[in-house]
């Protein structure tokens, strides 16, 4: 059993989401033309949570889309193939203020793929990035506009975000990987 420490409890996650939701609305001066785009799978869950929070204090329903980035990966010939699933945008993204949402920001390669995937669907006015955990170790010039928690990690660790909808409980844990499997 690998060693693990809790980074965020269910309450911490709830507070972080509420704060990020406020920041998103503040930065975009309201919810007009706002679109939340979750990166599958847990980014989509997080996007729905943020949309719920916004509905709670703004009374506005912000559309939530989901993005599958697997067809845009840069490592398709060096690792086992991921299952490709449909992307789904409830509105035309042309001219929208799109906020990409993912659970963990790490090397930045997922976000690079997500930008390509998004722009193939149309031309948003702006694209911003919100993540629940930023764990560092960027390999590309990418940064988040909204961060739930910044946490320094080592490459021998893994950040696991769990949501009730997908994993049965809300929590973020830091798992110590065994050296042999560390990337």
């Amino acid at each position, binding site marked *: 059993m690998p060693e693990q420490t809790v980074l965020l409890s269910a309450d911490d996650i709830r507070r972080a989401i509420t704060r990020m939701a406020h920041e998103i609305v503040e930065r975009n001066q309201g919810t007009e033309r706002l679109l939340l785009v979750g990166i599958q799978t*847990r980014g989509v869950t997080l996007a729905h949570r943020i949309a719920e929070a916004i509905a709670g204090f703004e009374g506005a329903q912000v559309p939530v889309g989901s993005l599958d980035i697997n*067809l845009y990966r840069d490592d*398709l010939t060096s690792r086992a193939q991921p*299952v*490709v699933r449909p992307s789904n945008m409830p509105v035309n993204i042309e001219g929208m203020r799109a906020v990409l949402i993912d659970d963990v920001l790490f090397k930045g390669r997922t976000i690079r793929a997500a930008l390509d995937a998004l722009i193939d669907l149309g031309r948003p006015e702006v694209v911003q990035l919100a993540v629940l955990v930023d764990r560092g170790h960027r390999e590309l010039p990418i940064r988040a506009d909204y961060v739930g928690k910044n946490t320094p990690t080592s490459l021998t660790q893994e950040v696991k975000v769990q949501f009730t909808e997908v994993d049965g409980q809300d929590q973020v844990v830091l798992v110590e990987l065994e050296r042999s499997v560390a990337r």
Partner: protein
Amino acid sequence: MSTRAPVKDTPIAAVVAPRRHVLDLDDFTPEEIISLLEMTDGMREVMDRDIKKVPTLRGKVVMTLFYEASTRTRVSFEQAGKMLSADVINISASGSSAEKGESLIDTALTLQAMHADLIIIRHSHSGAPYLLAQHLERTGIINAGDGRHAHPTQALLDLYTMQRHMGSLKGAKVAIVGDVLHSRVARSDMWGLAAMGANVVLCGPPTLLPPEMLHGDGPGGRWPSNVTVDTNADRAITDADVVMTLRLQQERQSSGLLPSLREYSKRWQVNEERLKRAKPGVLVMHPGPMNEGVEISTSVAHGAASLIEEQVTNGVAIRMALLYWLLTGPQGEAVTA
């Protein structure tokens, strides 16, 4: 459609060993088929976009090598490759060195020497794709139809189309009506449907059914176990969830296997009257090209139950999923068929 919990980054290789060739469905596990059908949803979404192209297979070279006439299968592969940004090169036997007497193996070795990543072959001889798979060390092979033996991508698109409308295929009754004996589609469909747990009834004139099935030697051995035969179309279609019609290859009549087209359509044509015996909501399919008025009536072919056009659309999507599966993943390792 699928009940599996979506998990980001789940490598399909966990359940699906890498593969270099797709020759028939008889060596596919249900898990492999399920993974492929699952990914086909993602490919359908790409087809529905304004910009129908993703960069996934940039720099991959796919060659189609067709020794037999085809519209939908060849175009479908070409379109699938192009939507995934692969370079697709089409070679037809007429106008190629085959006319100068070059052997099939030499032609394929030439294409491999040009660094083709994948050759998609159709040939009138059963087993031709297997021969190439044995001789090519670096290039993968997809069988796009070999003689009367197999047509695995047609079967996969049929499975996908059925699953899209019915959810699970377990226990479903699928009647395949027509010239089963000469049909590579029926053969591959059987393997695929067997893997997915459907029950298959093969139906047609006794002269157009596989003799070993008809005379009680099968099933078993060369045939999957949930396949039965029936020469009576009314009985075969009764309570069917899916009725699949096969093209009557008209040259069969001159070979003495059929009394007359008129008698054939009277006894085995899929028409509205006959379809009333099937389950409500029955799905009607046909691999194309159709002889309307012979094996299928025009009103059924273009009626509400018909999925024939959707089969064509799904054919592109399933071939995209297949190209993605064969051409991505760890490269340069020893991978066996």
